[in-house]
């Protein structure tokens, strides 16, 4: 980079290099004067300076964009729902039976039933919650998969490109199946793909239902 000197005629390359800094007011004194002197006598650099100024002002004229209200509402719904789920305690759902002193024996039996039942309910309720969460997660994943496939089809139509069937299992199906199986089994993803091929028989096939051919 050439050193700028107010008494030196600077070349166009140096001016072009310094245009953005000049527009931002980062140049001072002799440097700035040299640039401006050059711009006055060089139509090419002056045009480039004009374009640079238009780019800068054009960018600054672009508006900020609020998220659609529906997006914000979905976030609130997600967070409120999670807050509500988190504040619930399974044992609070169950109503405690009213025990009458006059029915001591029956009350004892009832209390025993409550204790046993609560134990069973405490162990079953997390599963029920998990089942509900899993169903919701599966529904969401299904929706996202549909969206992804629709997007792929849309791009294919727009660009005239065809999906490479031979790469689909390797780049899309198998990695997704492995990740899914590990997520369900609570295992982390392997660090490299090479180690995953051995899991194909008990991983990808099981998760995908053995069907790796896509039409």
């Amino acid at each position, binding site marked *: 980079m050439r050193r700028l000197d107010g008494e030196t005629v600077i070349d166009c390359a140096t001016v072009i290099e310094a245009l953005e800094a000049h527009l931002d007011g980062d140049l001072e004194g002799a440097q700035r004067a040299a640039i401006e002197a050059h711009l006055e006598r060089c139509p090419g650099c002056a045009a480039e300076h004009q374009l640079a100024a238009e*780019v800068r002002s054009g960018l*600054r004229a672009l508006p900020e964009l609020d998220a659609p209200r529906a997006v914000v509402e979905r976030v*609130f719904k997600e967070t409120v729902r999670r807050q509500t789920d988190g504040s619930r305690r399974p044992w609070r759902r169950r109503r405690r039976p009213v025990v009458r002193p006059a029915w001591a024996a029956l009350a004892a039996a009832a209390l025993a039933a409550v204790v046993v039942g609560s134990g069973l309910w405490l162990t079953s309720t997390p599963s029920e919650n998990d089942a509900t969460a899993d169903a919701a997660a599966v529904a969401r994943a299904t929706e996202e998969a549909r969206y992804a496939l629709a997007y792929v089809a849309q791009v294919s139509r727009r660009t005239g490109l065809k999906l490479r069937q031979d790469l689909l299992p390797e*780049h899309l199906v198998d990695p997704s199946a492995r990740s899914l199986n590990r997520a369900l089994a609570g295992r982390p993803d392997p660090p490299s793909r090479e180690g995953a091929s051995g899991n194909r028989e008990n991983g990808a096939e099981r998760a995908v239902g053995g069907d790796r051919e896509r039409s």
Partner: protein
Amino acid sequence: MVKAFEAAVERHQRKIHTFASYYLGNPAEAEDITQEVLVRMWRQWSKLDTERLGPWLLRVTRNACYDLLRRRRSAAKLFVLEPEARPIEEGADPLPAVETAAAGDPGPGARAEGSEFQHHLRRALDELGEPFRSIVILREIQGFKYREISDALDLPLNTVRVYLHRGRRRLREGLREVYGHATA
């Protein structure tokens, strides 16, 4: 806690959505990223330093957008050109920003200005690589200060300035083809 979070959402949603919109050039994806980032903020709400929420959100948004673009480019490898289809230009993104099909949305900014120059500027921005794209959006469109960008992207202050200038220069070079300005 919920009230504080909701207030933060209202305060920051515009910045997140604006960045995602211009970064991705796709309104639907920008909405997805916005929602994802805000939900992630909720998940970490108890651990976040609310005084540094702005830089954290910018960083998370930018990383989410960058990851999405990488996935988009990775998906491009799965495609081959149909023999009867029009050829894709050399170096062009085979998966250009897809406008919302239903609404025919031209993308952010284009509606507001509607000028040809703005249209070409937006296209040039879509072609701009990292880290220039992030910095140009944050500085020129969203008006963040150099220090805020430096903090959000974890870059030295002077590096932000240099990258901004280089980014604008690359935009200029992209537009030169269209407008035919003379070069030195």
